[in-house]
């Protein structure tokens, strides 16, 4: 097998990389689960729950793999439920609160477009395990992107009120998108090793994909903002801790509880 394994040098970087992908999926999936029972219509309730389920499923595959790379005996559950906020390395955008439906759609749209590019790039990864997870996930993510971009167009090109709300959300959330494409030593090492796609290559592709939908949605793309968020280094906005408190409550209170 040509799989990069924990036995090979660079496994710390691979662990961080896979953990970041897994955490972003998990945190976004948990945010979407908060919508269940609160969506504007039953169909959207089911839709968001479906997206959540896919994302948590992808997180399970990624966190299981991360735990194996780390080799300390931590499985998906230990990584999901027994780490505090500073140990989470998700993109800061994923943890932003739901707000109204329009704001959740904007957050989802920006991250779906990012995941599409990342998974597309990982299909060619020389880490066969990661390539396999990406091949599975990208099929689901195409549906997610259809959902979020479809709603973005309906809301952006909808009423004055719906347009105002999604445009405001876009302005507010845009500052978190820079982080998606700022490469650090983990990204550089794995890109050089042929494991991860080059973020510098993904950025213009993501940008073009986003612009196409924004145009249809009659939304204005906000001006670029200097990079200032560090979720993937464990520095988070205040929102993640609150979210984890709820998500982890059961395992923290009754360690090892199963059903």
């Amino acid at each position: 097998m040509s799989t990069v394994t924990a036995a090979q040098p660079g496994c710390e970087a691979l662990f961080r990389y896979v953990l970041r992908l897994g955490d972003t999926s998990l945190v976004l999936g948990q945010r979407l689960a908060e919508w269940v029972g609160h969506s504007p219509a039953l169909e959207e309730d089911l839709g968001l729950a479906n997206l959540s389920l896919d994302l948590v499923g992808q997180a399970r595959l990624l966190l299981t793999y991360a735990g194996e790379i780390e080799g300390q005996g931590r499985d998906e559950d230990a990584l999901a439920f027994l780490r505090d906020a500073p140990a989470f390395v998700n993109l800061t955008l994923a943890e932003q609160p739901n707000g109204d439906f329009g704001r959740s759609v904007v957050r989802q749209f920006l991250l779906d477009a990012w995941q599409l590019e990342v998974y597309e790039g990982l299909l060619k990864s020389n880490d066969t395990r990661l390539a396999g997870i990406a091949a599975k996930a990208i099929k689901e993510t195409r549906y997610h992107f259809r959902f979020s971009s479809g709603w973005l167009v309906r809301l952006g090109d909808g009423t004055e009120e719906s347009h105002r709300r999604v445009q405001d959300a876009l302005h507010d959330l845009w500052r978190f998108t820079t982080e998606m494409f700022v490469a650090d030593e983990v990204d550089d090492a794995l890109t050089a090793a042929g494991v991860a796609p080059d973020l510098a290559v993904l950025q213009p592709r993501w940008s073009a994909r986003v612009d196409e939908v924004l145009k249809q949605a009659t939304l204005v793309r906000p001006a670029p903002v200097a990079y200032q968020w560090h979720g993937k280094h464990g520095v988070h906005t205040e929102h993640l801790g609150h979210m984890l408190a709820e998500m982890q409550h059961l395992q923290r209170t009754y360690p090892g509880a199963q059903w």
Partner: protein
Amino acid sequence: MVAAAVPAVEDRERQIWNVLESVPDPEIPVLSVVDLGIVRHVRWVADSDGQSRLHVGITPTYSGCPATEVIRQSVATALNDEGYAGAVIDEVLSPPWTSDWLTDAGRRKLESFGIAPPQRVVANPRHLFRAHVVMCPRCGSGATERVSEFGSTPCKAHYRCTSCLEPFDYFKCL
């Protein structure tokens, strides 16, 4: 010699496939796990301890499908009941499952159960999201419309027939 007492490999595998054909999908019980196309292999493998064990490879339909865990248990239980104790269930992730793997028998069962079967389009991703006609499984009309791409389970979309006015599920393409 005693060779007559040992069935050929093909026969042994055939017996396992027969057992698996009796294991229903928990969400769509008219379909067996074989109809769904999620059984990827049936084989005897010499494990690291030198023992030859039955391995059955199962692939999930969707990453987060809650039925996956139940299916693993149902398969293990069915094999155990038929005298194949200690079978190993392998999780197979790649190549990823596609709705094209649904068998023809599975498609017919879906339709008679009231679920429109998926179109065979996944082999070419450019066709995946092209508008295509979904036939109403109740009256056969092509006058249908999509209510939501996400339905009661990850694998289904929600449709309605504008001819007979019945709502129905469509097993969507993946």
